[in-house]
C-alpha cells in the first residue's frame, strides 16, 4: 500500500526528470557516460553503512531467542550443514534435505525449522504479506544467515538426483514465457550487457560475476527502506513479468533458486547487499 504511493511518486519524479533532460542538449553519449559514472559514484557513497546491518543484528537475536508455541530457539535448525551450523550454509542453498524429502531454499527451510522447532504454522507464515508480522522475522533471519556466508563462493550441491531435476525444471521455468507481455525471466536476464532504463541486468544463465545477480540477494532496498529476501525479489520479478502471484516458497521459486544458484557457481556472495 505504501508501495503504491511510493511508486507513483517515483513516476512523477521520473517524469519531472525527463522534462529536465528535454531541456538539456549535450551529446547523448557524453550524457550517458556521466549518468553511469554519477550513479556509480552515488552507489560508492552509500556502500559504507548499509542499513542491512540493522536487519542482521535483529536476525541473530531472533535465531537465538526462544519463540513460538514451543518456546524454542532456532539454534538446532539444520540449514544443510548439520544442526546449528550457519556459517557457509547460505552459499549451498537451495539443496536436498532428507528429513523433508525436498529440495529447499533458505526461506522454505526456515519455514520447516520454525514449524518443527518452534511450532509455527508454516502455511500461515507463507501467507503473511512481505514486511508484516513473522515475515519480518524471516527477512531478518535471511539477512543474518546470508551475512554469515559473506565473502564465500556459491557451490550448490548437485549430487542428489532431485537437485539435478530441480535444476532442469528451474531452467525451463526461467525460459517460460507467458502473461500479457509474453515475458520470461530470460526476457531480461538471458543475455549479458543489457539494461532496463539505466539498470544493468545480470545474465542469470551464467555466473554474472562476484556479488552480482544471485550473489547479491538478500539486499537492503534503498527505494523502500526494506530488506528484501530472495523470495521477495522473485515475487517482484514475477509482478513485473505480469505473471500471477507466486506462492511464498512455492516450487517454482525453489526451482529457479537452484537454476540461478548452480549457474552462479564460484561467485562471491556479498549478501545482504545494498540495492537501489
Amino acid at each position, binding site marked *: *500500500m*505504501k508501495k*503504491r*504511493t*511510493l511508486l507513483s511518486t517515483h513516476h512523477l519524479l521520473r517524469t519531472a526528470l525527463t522534462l529536465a533532460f528535454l531541456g538539456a542538449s549535450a551529446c547523448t553519449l557524453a550524457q550517458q557516460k556521466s549518468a553511469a559514472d554519477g550513479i556509480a559514484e552515488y552507489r560508492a557513497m552509500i556502500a*559504507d*553503512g548499509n*542499513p542491512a*546491518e*540493522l536487519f542482521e*543484528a*535483529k536476525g541473530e537475536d531472533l535465531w537465538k531467542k526462544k519463540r513460538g508455541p514451543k518456546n524454542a530457539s532456532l539454534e538446532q535448525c539444520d540449514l544443510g550443514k548439520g544442526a546449528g551450523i550457519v556459517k557457509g550454509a547460505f552459499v549451498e542453498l537451495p539443496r536436498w534435505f532428507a528429513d523433508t524429502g525436498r529440495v529447499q531454499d533458505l526461506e522454505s527451510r526456515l519455514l520447516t525449522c520454525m514449524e518443527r522447532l518452534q511450532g509455527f504454522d508454516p502455511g500461515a507464515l507463507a501467507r503473511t504479506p512481505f514486511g508484516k508480522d513473522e515475515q519480518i522475522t524471516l527477512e531478518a533471519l535471511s539477512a543474518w544467515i546470508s551475512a554469515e556466508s559473506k565473502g564465500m563462493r556459491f557451490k550448490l550441491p548437485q549430487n542428489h538426483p532431485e537437485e539435478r531435476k530441480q535444476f532442469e525444471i528451474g531452467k525451463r521455468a526461467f525460459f517460460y514465457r507467458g502473461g500479457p507481455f509474453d515475458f520470461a525471466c530470460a526476457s531480461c536476464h538471458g543475455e549479458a550487457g543489457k539494461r532496463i532504463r539505466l539498470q544493468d541486468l545480470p545474465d542469470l544463465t551464467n555466473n554474472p560475476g562476484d556479488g552480482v545477480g544471485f550473489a547479491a540477494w538478500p539486499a*537492503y532496498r534503498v527505494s523502500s*527502506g526494506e530488506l528484501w529476501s530472495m523470495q521477495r525479489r522473485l515475487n517482484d520479478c514475477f509482478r513485473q513479468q505480469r505473471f500471477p502471484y507466486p506462492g511464498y516458497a512455492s516450487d517454482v521459486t525453489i526451482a529457479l533458486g537452484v537454476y540461478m544458484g548452480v549457474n552462479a557457481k564460484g561467485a562471491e556472495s556479498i549478501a545482504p547487499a545494498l540495492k537501489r
Partner: protein
Amino acid sequence: MADPMRIRAQSAGGKATVRVLMSHEMETGLRKDSGGKTIPAWFIQEVSAQLNGKTVMTAQWGPAISKNPYLQFMIKGANAGDKVTVSWVDNKGDKRTDEATIS
C-alpha cells in the same frame, strides 16, 4: 521497543570517527496510504552522543532524514577503549540508547 543501533567507532590520531545506523521509519507525515489517509509523521527529532558519559554532540532532525538513518561524526580527544554512547528520541517520545567501545 525500538531495535538497537549499530555503532562503529574507530580512533586514529586522537580523533574517533563514529558511524551510526539507527532503525527507524522516519515517516514524513506527507505520504498517504492506499485509502487516501495521511500516514502520520513519525521521525527521530533529537540525537545526542556522549564520550565516557560527557555529552559531545547534539543534533535536531526533521522528517527529511532517510529511513533507517545513517550518521557520521568525529570526536576529538577520543582513544581506543573509550565509550561512545548514542541516544535518539522521536516525535512520539520513543527513545533508544546504545553504546560502543572505540577501537
